[in-house]
């Protein structure tokens, strides 16, 4: 589920853009392995595959059908870093070319699907993908990746003040669960069919740094679960959250970085907000650029 622009409160999309940019940069460097760009075509073509895969419908029964989302399949086939980068590229193309997901909300969608979804999906595969629970692990990978992405998106929407009657909320949770289970089933069926064509195509999870990966996967699952729980108990959004936790000063400083200069603009509150928003964008841009630079020099 791709969040369009206009849904998220400014502090939410801004914070997620700030979080997503360095994370995407880090994934790109890990996927790149040194400075060789030799795997660019593989990641690009597999991204195009995930796009095209959406044209192939899977019957679910009662006349409806679903399609592959792909995060877990990519994670099992390419490893989590490459899968994350590929998902980032997919989301960027979807936002720019297909108006599927917003541009300001791109950070949120990257966090939900390319980071949380991919790492949560890789967790069961990493834990059990090599043993006799492999089939279950692949099914769980697909299920968890979609469930975590959807829950994270739901949490962000609720925090931003998008209102949902409890019946609708319950229904969407049920819907998420169904599509997550469907993704698990599709991922498993596709990987089994692949291994029938070419045994050993999807290998066992790679050894090396299992602890960090498991921690990242677990963190993704927890973050989504806690986020939804938190968002549904505090449905009035960021403002109340800030007041309640007593960090309203900090929050105000964050959402309006030019708070100190507001007087100079003589009043009209929207101008303050717009300028604060633009300054926020500039700030995000600066921070991301700096982090990028720092990371680049460190890895040289």
């Amino acid at each position, binding site marked *: *589920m*791709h969040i*369009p*622009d*206009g*849904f998220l409160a400014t502090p939410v999309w801004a914070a997620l853009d700030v979080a997503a940019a360095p994370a995407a*940069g880090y994934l790109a460097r890990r*996927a790149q392995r040194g*400075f060789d*760009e*030799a795997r*660019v*075509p*593989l*990641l*690009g*073509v*597999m*991204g*195009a*595959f995930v796009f*095209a*895969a959406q*044209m*192939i419908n*899977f*019957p679910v*029964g009662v006349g409806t059908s679903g399609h592959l989302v792909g995060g877990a399949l990519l994670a099992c*086939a390419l490893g989590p870093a490459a899968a994350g*980068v590929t998902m980032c590229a*997919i989301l*960027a*193309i979807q936002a*720019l*070319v*297909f*108006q599927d997901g*917003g*541009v*300001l909300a791109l950070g949120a969608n990257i966090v939900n699907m390319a980071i949380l979804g991919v790492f949560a999906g890789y967790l069961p595969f990493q834990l059990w993908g090599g043993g006799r629970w492999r089939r279950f692990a692949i099914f769980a990978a697909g299920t968890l990746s979609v469930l975590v992405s959807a829950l994270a998106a739901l949490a962000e929407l609720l925090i931003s*003040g*998008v*209102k949902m*009657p409890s019946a609708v909320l319950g229904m969407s949770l049920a819907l998420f669960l169904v599509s997550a289970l469907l993704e698990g089933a599709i991922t498993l*069926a*596709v990987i089994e*069919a*692949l291994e029938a*064509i070419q045994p050993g*195509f999807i290998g066992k999870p790679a050894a090396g740094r299992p602890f960090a990966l498991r921690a990242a996967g677990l963190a993704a699952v927890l973050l989504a679960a806690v986020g939804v729980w938190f968002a549904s108990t505090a449905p009035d959004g960021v403002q109340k959250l800030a007041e309640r936790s007593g960090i309203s000063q900090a929050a105000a400083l964050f959402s309006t970085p030019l708070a100190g200069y507001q007087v100079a603009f003589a009043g*009209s509150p*929207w101008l303050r907000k*717009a300028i*604060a*928003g633009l300054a*926020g*964008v500039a700030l995000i841009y600066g921070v*991301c*650029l700096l982090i*990028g630079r720092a990371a680049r020099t460190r890895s040289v």
Partner: protein
Amino acid sequence: MHHVVLERWSRGASALHRRDPRAKLAALLVFLVVVATAHRALPALAAALLVLLSAAVVGAGIPLAGALGRAALVLPFTAVFGAACWLAGDPARGLALVLKSYLSALAVLLVVSTTSLPVLLRGLETAGAPRYLLMVAQFLYRYLFVISEEAQHMSKAAASRGATLRGLAARARFRAAAGALAVLFARSYGRAGDIHRAMLARSFPGHFLTLDALRFRRGDAVFLVLASLAPVAARAAVERFARWPA
């Protein structure tokens, strides 16, 4: 297909097509922020911004109805949440979701249909976005055409066997779809290998070299200032004179 139409539009030659991609991206960001942070007199502001965007669409020589229709791709998703908000007793917010997401989508569409994607990605690269990610996006876009065509052939082939497939249980059709995807996956993987060999055969040194640097001219700067001021001014005017309550 959607992206084929956009690509055709992006080959136009209007003044907007010729602007530096970075100027267009920066102006887009300003527009999106103006929309995202708006909450007073939203219907009037939306009308004003819609007129602004429509004028730009027409000025760029892009069919207005086509552009408005394509931006409406966001509406089904948005309408669901708008309705949810309305049911929850907050119709104003529901309306805001619909208006904001539609305007944002139209603005993005305007930029993408006046800038070819490779040029847009180049602009993002010189603005500091991770190059590796952008190269992946460029290959994704290049082979999107090829692989979705393969997928269409496969789903047509499946449909032409429909007579036999329809008789099958859902479970068997599910397996058939999984088989088709597996073949598509293996083919895509193989194609990536072919591309890599073709790169090596032409002395690929390990990283991509680019032909031409983008040039930010004075016209781009003027455009950036004007295009950024327009939505800000529209919002100032609307919020000053409109009588709609918050």
